[in-house]
């Protein structure tokens, strides 16, 4: 009994974060190669090759959340990077130069692993790292899906890249790629993603046992631990806790009741995490979902490379407006949303420049209100607390009007 009581998923999460970074630093110290990779990349290949991997996006977010981003941002801007460029990139390119962060250190890479399903910006960012650090880069180019589904010839192109990358990894490690292990990693990755999805799906229950800002924390681990047993255990554990909470009728917080349920579009404002969270909680607003649970629900049949390619090309940011509209409308219904908060994130043009149209379409299809606020994922300068507060107040008023109307029938 003691054992069960001891370890919560939150404790385990914290242990895994520490283990993840210590493991990578240790690998480097032992002379083993280290990989830097983008957040939704086919990590199965790296896991199969047993390569220590860290994720600059996770790292930048961690630095941002611990309010350490500016030092790195200023370093990058000093080198000529524009303040309009993605702040994850600026933090990471700054870190690649300074190589020391109070918040968290990561080992310098020997190999870069970049997948453009999240944006084309990562191609430029990783190109620059490769050029500056003089290390090889493996690129997975995942064509933007301007059609509703992922086209067959795109899948063939991406499958070809996965096969090519396996050769590049063999050259890099001077080891043969172990296809049996690859199959096992695929299986485990799929299972982990399934628990991630099932866990985040508990937020469909009213009240939601999940406080959505916790989801942002767990997200770091679905990025870096999809393909290993620790990650699998973590998400199963988190799922079981949420299930138990839901069955006991418990909401997201001990100190307040869930009054409104919203979706948060876009990534968090890491430097202002607490401010953005508290301004919502004050009104009983729980962020119950976003487009991220599905983005890491990377699912395919074991040993099916084409299926794997398709799954990796299928994330929200890489899809067309019609798909994205249907996706958000489905979230509104499945999660019984009262409203949506759109983060117009200065760092992420790919998300931003479709946001207005998505907002109009979702509002027309569902009738739920929404607001847009200006912010940034890691640049603390691009956020105004006053504007955020005002927008949230406006959202509460609109959501309350809707509730009132429903009460009156």
């Amino acid at each position, binding site marked *: 009994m003691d054992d069960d009581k001891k370890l919560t998923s939150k404790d385990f999460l914290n242990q895994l974060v520490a283990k993840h970074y210590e493991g990578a630093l240790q690998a480097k110290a032992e002379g083993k190669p280290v990989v830097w990779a983008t957040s939704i990349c086919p990590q199965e290949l790296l896991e199969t090759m047993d390569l220590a991997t860290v994720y600059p996006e996770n790292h930048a977010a961690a630095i941002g959340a611990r309010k350490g981003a500016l030092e790195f941002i200023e370093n*990058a801007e000093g*080198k*000529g*990077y*524009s303040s*309009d*460029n*993605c702040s994850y*990139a600026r933090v990471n390119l700054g870190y690649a130069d300074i190589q020391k962060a109070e918040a968290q250190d990561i080992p310098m890479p020997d190999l870069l692993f970049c997948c*453009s399903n999240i*944006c*084309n*910006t990562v*191609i*430029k*960012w990783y*190109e*620059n790292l*490769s*050029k*500056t650090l003089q290390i*090889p*880069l493996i*690129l*997975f*180019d995942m*064509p*933007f899906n*301007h059609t509703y589904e992922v086209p067959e*010839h*795109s899948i*063939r*192109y991406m*499958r*070809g*890249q996965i*096969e*090519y990358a396996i050769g590049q990894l063999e050259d890099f490690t001077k080891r043969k790629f172990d296809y049996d292990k690859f199959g096992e990693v695929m299986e485990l990755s799929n299972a982990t993603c399934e628990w991630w999805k099932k866990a985040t799906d508990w937020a469909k229950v009213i009240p939601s046992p999940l406080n959505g800002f916790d989801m942002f924390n767990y997200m770091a681990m679905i990025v870096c631990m999809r393909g290993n047993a620790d990650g699998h255990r973590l998400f199963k554990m988190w799922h079981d806790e949420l299930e138990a909470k839901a069955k006991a009728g418990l909401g997201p917080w001990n100190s307040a009741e869930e009054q409104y349920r919203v979706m948060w579009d876009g990534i968090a404002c890491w430097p202002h995490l607490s401010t953005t969270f508290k301004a919502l909680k004050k009104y009983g607003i729980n962020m119950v979902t976003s487009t991220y649970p599905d983005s890491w629900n990377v699912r395919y049949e074991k040993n099916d490379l084409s299926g794997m390619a398709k799954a990796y090309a299928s994330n929200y940011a890489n899809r*067309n*407006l019609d798909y994205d509209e249907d996706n958000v409308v489905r979230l509104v219904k499945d999660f019984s949303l009262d409203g949506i908060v759109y983060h*117009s994130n*200065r760092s992420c*043009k*790919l998300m*931003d*420049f*479709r946001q*207005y*149209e998505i907002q109009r379409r979702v509002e027309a299809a569902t009738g739920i209100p929404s607001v847009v606020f200006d912010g940034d994922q890691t640049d603390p300068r691009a956020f105004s607390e006053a504007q955020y507060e005002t927008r949230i107040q406006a959202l509460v008023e609109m959501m309350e009007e809707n509730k009132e109307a429903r009460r009156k029938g």
Partner: protein
Amino acid sequence: MMSNAVSIIQELEAIALSPYKSVMRTMKETGKEAIGCFPIYAPEELIYAAGMLPVGMWGGDTELKLADRYLQTFCCSIMRSNIEYSMKGAYDMLKAVIIPTFCDTLKCICENWKVSAPRIPVIPMVYPQNRRIDAGFVYMTEELERVRGALEEISEKPITDAMLEDAFAVYEAYRSAMREFVSVAAEHPEMINARSRHLIIKAAYFSDKKAYTDKINKLTEALKKESVKPFPGIKVVATGLIAEPPALLDIFAKNNVAIAADDLAQESRQFRALSRKSGNVIQRLAWRIVDQQGCTFLYEVEKTRGQMLIEQVRNTGSKGVVVFMMKFCDPEEFDYPIYKEELERAGIPVLYLETEQQMDSFAQIETRVQSFAEMLA
């Protein structure tokens, strides 16, 4: 001959300064229907082969109001202008547009266009970034074939291989003429100043390529007959997406700063790569993208742009590099710190100018161009 050259220069400048009028006139003169081509590269040869007129869509100086419905203000002004024009009906003469998704903004523009200009069908196109591996090359030929099919549907007639060969030959002649023009023009800054050079090259986007190539060839021949005179100013190499608005280039002309060569996406990147001779036209079009170097919109892990600029400076006797940085253009902005450092290491001065298509004050830029020119004189 001199007066002949001057009249061609004036004619091409006028074409470039009035895109709408020029396109309408070309359509009338040729009897062709027009297809809009978004930056950076579009397979113009396919359009030409279909008996239609490819038209360049590189924005313009229009007041931005309607585009706010789709785009935040931190979107590049070329794309905001294009969406604005589409909503104003300025593109209604186009039968369709081709939008390639070279950057994150273009991906979104492609999607927004479907709503902002529903009357003008969009043919989206994806150029592979992994263009130098087999799977990427095959994918590129498949995309080109798909666009060929879409154009066949629009023109309601097949595009045969023979038609493609003819169109490719027209474009080869055009590219070769342009390479010669920019090289000869560099010898005659007294006649082809920064502004003229830009407008002459830009005029191609609103003309029939065959007729345009004839004019360029005549102009080059006329220039060749002129003796090379000592130039009282300095020569520079221009890099970036686009060197606009034209008022900006007036400052260069006024200060005797001539553009001896460029690496601009709107200018030399369109014609500098040499075509391969083998394969069918679709494959040759794909090879052109494979062989393009130092373009920020095409993945290149070696990042050869800086070295290329250094060579351009040395080959043309230029004194420095001018960066025309289109504000909010992520790919161009990401390349800058890398080539800037390489240029500095090579001892080549760099003038960085941040531009937008809607600029009303040039005073600060004028001062900077002046001091750059003085420093290098």
